[in-house]
């Protein structure tokens, strides 16, 4: 179908007529171009839905620095010995083959917003009519005195999945009974609010499965409370009595710094020693949105809650961990959900595809122990310019083991479904 007849067709079946900017899709011109930066939970979903729903009417290019994507979601299960590394690593083949997406492996360095182009590290350039950015997070290494990129080779953060996750796994596997782990948890906001506490559960699960009952894990937390706290504490007492200690700021008084070679974390109250340190620092949106000057003072990007469009540039949409999404937590599920709304508006702009008032969803499952899963989630809408929850749920303390097992099984099923929804 030619561009012209496609527009008439759209009109004939009653799709919305007015695009936000001047119509780009005019007879004789090339197809409109959508460029997506970041092939993770948000970006790959956005590329896939845009390609799928445009039915060939737009060109979609996905720029992703890595050849494969290892998900942070379920990476804690890998640490606990419940999943293998391959099962959390995904390829981009299907997006290229089955959806005709131009997958470019390279690092996007700069965005020229005036010219609507992006520049890659290899010197190449791509132009866009609409740009979708889902770069995830960067670790703010110097937010903890004594920590750095180099220090992360000794005391991994493993908060970006891949080599860091494998490094932490190798170090965990090398521990002996009686060795101990000290984790420094991140301050808000960070990706995956229950993530540090699921990780600690999985570390304890690993120790328990290897009979290392004298090993302990200490969490030094800059936050006075955390996600699903009651459920985790209950679970730790049940599965790992005496193995996990959580230390809140009113006890440690503040984190002064770390010394990764000595294996110590210094706080106002005391110095904690660990055979292994897992340091998870403060985070901020990926570098590309900083370069493009799309962030506010928080280090993240403000978006329009109806569309995921940047409040600073109508040609750019920002998803996932990099954006400020009101009541939605930074999760893979959220990023996947937001991507569908952004994609709808991109196609609304470019080919007049019909748009609807935004609906978002999220669920975060956490595995506490064998067949013991808990969940928290919500549905969201755009209310008075903010993404607000309209309906929420959370697992209850003291639930029977059947319920917990079903919840765990849901999470396994979810992982298969969402990775299919992301990568095709």
């Amino acid at each position, binding site marked *: 179908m030619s561009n012209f007849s496609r527009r008439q067709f759209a009109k004939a079946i009653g799709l919305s007529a007015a695009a936000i900017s001047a119509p780009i899709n005019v007879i004789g011109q090339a197809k409109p171009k959508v460029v997506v930066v970041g092939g993770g939970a948000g970006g790959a979903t956005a590329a896939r839905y845009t390609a799928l729903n445009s039915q060939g009417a737009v060109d979609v290019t996905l720029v992703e620095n890595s050849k494969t994507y290892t998900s942070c979601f379920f990476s804690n299960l890998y640490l606990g010995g419940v999943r293998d590394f391959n099962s959390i690593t995904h390829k981009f083949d299907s997006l290229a083959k089955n959806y005709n997406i131009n997958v470019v492996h390279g690092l996007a360095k700069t965005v020229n917003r005036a010219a609507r182009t992006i520049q890659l590290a290899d010197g190449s350039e791509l132009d866009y009519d609409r740009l979708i950015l889902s770069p995830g997070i960067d670790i703010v290494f110097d937010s903890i005195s004594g920590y750095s990129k180099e220090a992360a080779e000794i005391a991994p953060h493993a908060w970006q999945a891949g080599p860091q996750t494998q490094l932490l796994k190798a170090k965990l596997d090398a521990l002996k009974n009686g060795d101990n782990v000290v984790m420094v948890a991140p301050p808000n906001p960070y990706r995956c609010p229950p993530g540090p506490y699921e990780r600690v559960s999985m570390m304890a699960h690993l120790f328990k499965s290897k009979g290392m009952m004298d090993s302990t894990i200490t969490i030094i937390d800059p936050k006075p409370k955390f996600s699903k706290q009651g459920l985790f504490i209950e679970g730790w007492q049940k599965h790992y009595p005496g193995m996990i200690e959580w230390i809140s700021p009113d006890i440690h008084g503040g984190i002064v710094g770390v010394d990764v070679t000595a294996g110590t974390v210094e706080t106002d109250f005391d110095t904690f020693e660990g055979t292994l340190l897992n340091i998870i620092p403060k985070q901020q949106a990926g570098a590309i949105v900083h370069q493009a000057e799309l962030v506010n003072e928080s280090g993240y990007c403000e978006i329009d809650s109806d569309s995921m469009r940047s409040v600073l540039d109508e040609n750019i949409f920002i998803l996932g961990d990099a954006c400020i999404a009101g009541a939605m937590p930074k999760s893979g599920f959220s990023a*996947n*959900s937001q991507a569908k709304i952004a994609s709808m508006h991109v196609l609304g702009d470019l080919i007049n595809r019909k748009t609807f008032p935004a609906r978002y*969803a999220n669920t975060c499952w956490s595995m506490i122990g064998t067949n013991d899963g808990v969940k928290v989630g919500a*549905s969201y809408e755009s209310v008075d310019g903010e993404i607000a929850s309209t309906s929420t749920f959370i697992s209850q303390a003291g639930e029977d083991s059947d319920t917990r097992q079903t919840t765990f099984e*849901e999470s396994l099923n979810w992982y298969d*479904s969402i990775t299919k*929804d992301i990568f095709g």
Partner: protein
Amino acid sequence: MLLRNKCIGVAVGITVCLSCFAGDTSEESLSEVRLATRIDSILKEKSDIFYGEFLAAQCASCHSKNENTGAIPIIHGQSKLDLTQALLEYQNELRTNAIMQSIAGALSDEDIGALALYFSKQ
């Protein structure tokens, strides 16, 4: 499963139930009658399949079209009646799953009709 069969019975046997509505009115039969009436009215309304497709994208994070076996059932290809009824049962806590109770709780009758139409065509 039991509940579902019982409710289909209610949906088709609406007049029978209306008589129990008039006479013996236990809480349960009252809510089942309301449910049957709502199923009826949702199925009667004309739904927008494009709206259904839009809403259904948010279901795809959990409900895959193929090869799903396990705790999350395949809903693609279910009949409009089954889908409408299941969603209303979650909404009214006649089915217990916390996720689906919450998700269905955020859906209007128009949403449910559109989703049921869309999934029934997959």
